[in-house]
């Protein structure tokens, strides 16, 4: 029986390997060390704050983040801006509120409880301003792409001149990591584009890493709590399992059968 199982598994793996090889047009994404991966993975606070800066100064002119509120910026496990900092950030945006007692909509400075202000009124307006392409909402973007953070990190650095024989339409750019290689977003990052408050040198690589970290947090704001709880839960389960194992041995020792 064992022999046949092995032969079968062998055939299975050979087949899957062949199929994988045949399907192998996959691009290798650029790799970097993500602080939030692994059993104890946590976000790098500095990177999150810098990432927020890149998002606001670069991305947010086209990309919304409709599920985030300014209060999230102060929450534990996030960029952890102080409340005053976050209030100042919120107040720097103009929010449309209302209707007031006269039935009029009015503008006021943002508050912590406001959602991130959207760059466009609606999807149509966003498309009209971007040559027909809708800049996707970035709230869960890091989970909404195959390849996740590695893909986004690579994409931001993947712009290059198109190879010979490929002609691009007006407003279309070549990116070696994009599906189909054609992307309607132009290269947004260049060295020194953002002046980091903490003095970090803003290379394209650094900014890509920071903004991607920020996007991961935006998509999974409770990631740190999840990792912490997961470790405790699994340690607890392992201890309990061990205890139950010995109880089981003890109970079954009353009859002469191996468990």
């Amino acid at each position, binding site marked *: 029986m064992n022999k046949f*199982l092995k032969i*079968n598994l062998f055939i299975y793996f050979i*087949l899957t390997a062949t199929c994988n090889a045949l399907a192998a047009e996959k691009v290798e994404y650029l790799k970097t060390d993500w602080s939030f991966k692994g059993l104890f993975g946590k976000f790098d606070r500095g990177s999150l704050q810098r990432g927020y800066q890149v998002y606001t100064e670069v991305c947010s002119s086209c990309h919304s983040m409709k599920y985030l509120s300014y209060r999230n910026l102060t929450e534990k496990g996030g960029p952890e801006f102080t409340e005053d900092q976050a209030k100042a950030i919120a107040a720097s945006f103009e929010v449309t509120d209302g209707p007031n007692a006269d039935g009029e909509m009015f503008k006021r400075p943002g508050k912590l409880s406001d959602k991130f202000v959207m760059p466009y009124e609606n999807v149509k307006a966003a498309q009209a301003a971007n040559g027909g392409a809708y800049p996707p909402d970035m709230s869960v973007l890091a989970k909404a792409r195959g390849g*996740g953070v590695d893909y986004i990190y690579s994409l931001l650095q993947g712009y290059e001149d198109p190879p010979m024989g490929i002609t691009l339409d007006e407003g279309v750019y070549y990116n070696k990591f994009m599906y189909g290689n054609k992307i309607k977003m132009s290269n947004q990052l260049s060295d020194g584009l953002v002046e980091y408050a903490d003095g970090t040198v803003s290379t394209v690589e650094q900014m890509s890493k920071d903004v991607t970290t920020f996007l991961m947090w935006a998509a999974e704001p409770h990631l740190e709590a999840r990792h912490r709880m997961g470790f405790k839960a*699994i340690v607890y389960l392992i201890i309990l399992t061990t205890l139950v194992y010995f109880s089981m041995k003890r109970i079954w020792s009353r009859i002469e059968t191996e468990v």
Partner: protein
Amino acid sequence: MSEEYTPKSKFGKWFNDRLPLLSLANHLTDYPTPKNLNYWWTFGGILTFCLITQIVTGLVLAMHYIAHADMAFDSVEHIMRDVNYGWLIRYIHANGASMFFLAVYIHIFRSLFYGSYKAPREIIWIIGIIIYLLMMAAAFMGYVLPWGQMSFWGATVITNLFSAIPLVGEGIVTWLWGGYSVDNPTLTRFFTLHYLIPFLILGLVVLHIWALHVPGNNNPVGIDIKKPSKDTVPFHPYIVIKDGFALLMFMIVFAFFVFYTPNILGHADNYIEANPLVTPAHIVPEWYLLPFYAILRSVPDKLLGVVAMLSAIFILAALPWLDTSKIRSAVFRPLYRQFYWILVADVLILGYVGAMPAEGLYLLIARIATAYYFLHFLVILPILGYKEKTLPVPLSITDPILGGSPNLATARNKESLSNK
């Protein structure tokens, strides 16, 4: 049920005469169980745990979820961000579905190996197949609820299958959708049914266990045992603690998925809100439906594809009559054992090609694997029952192990069991 049981206390006796709950509890704890059940037998308990977990987490999610095409995706994000431990409850529910199917596949393949579907257990088996069908329905509808791209397009592809029915097909699809495309009415009815089906499953699980308690458990040796006897142990504490231990092991795997890779079993596209104007490059169902998806796509004709896919499931219900062998356990069926493992590989291959685009080599493999799947049940199993030279089966569980019986099967039996 044990009629001889009488509660000790006066009130207990008074109550039990009117509603024999205590007799039932006594039956459940004393239930004589074969003592040689291996760990493959612990998945029944694990499945009960999965069902309860899905119902409890689902109940909490339903308190926060909004079944509306414009708000469903937002409400899921609300659960993930702002509901206290909403992320935990949703990840348990989403991964719980996968764990449920993992357990049910092990449970089904255990039955296939040890011939648990054979007389006198056909009704248990058929109820099990109905439960499995309902599970697939519940899982499919549940996947639609977050209203992401895969939700929407998966729902479109699967409901469109009904259009293959001649004459009335189109009408049925419109009726299912509650409109001319998958839209808000589809979402609300899927939500309603997704809430209903688990309770149907729960009812069937009660019948499944009831039907099991009539003939008692099958066992790795696959022989009828006298109960209670030296071949059996009372369910409590022996099986309870063993099931508990196995459940805890299972929960460690479960916890790993929930806490460390909660999205690995899902599709990234489902974090993009449903958009009827944009079709994803590859529409793939969840992993546990992939073998059937592969069968569906391997047939060039739409109607025949649907027929093939449904037959692949319903053929299982006929298994007690397709398998003509009198011997239950594969331990004593050297040929069946080999075909069993080929079938396992075949289903894994179907699952793999189901996730790949239906073209070229993948399509060819899918067709061969589909043909073999039906060949196994319709040709190999019936013939095998007549042709196979089976090994001698021991008369009891205890005798070959304790008595040093001259039965040749003994050594083999023990060896096979330890290999498992």
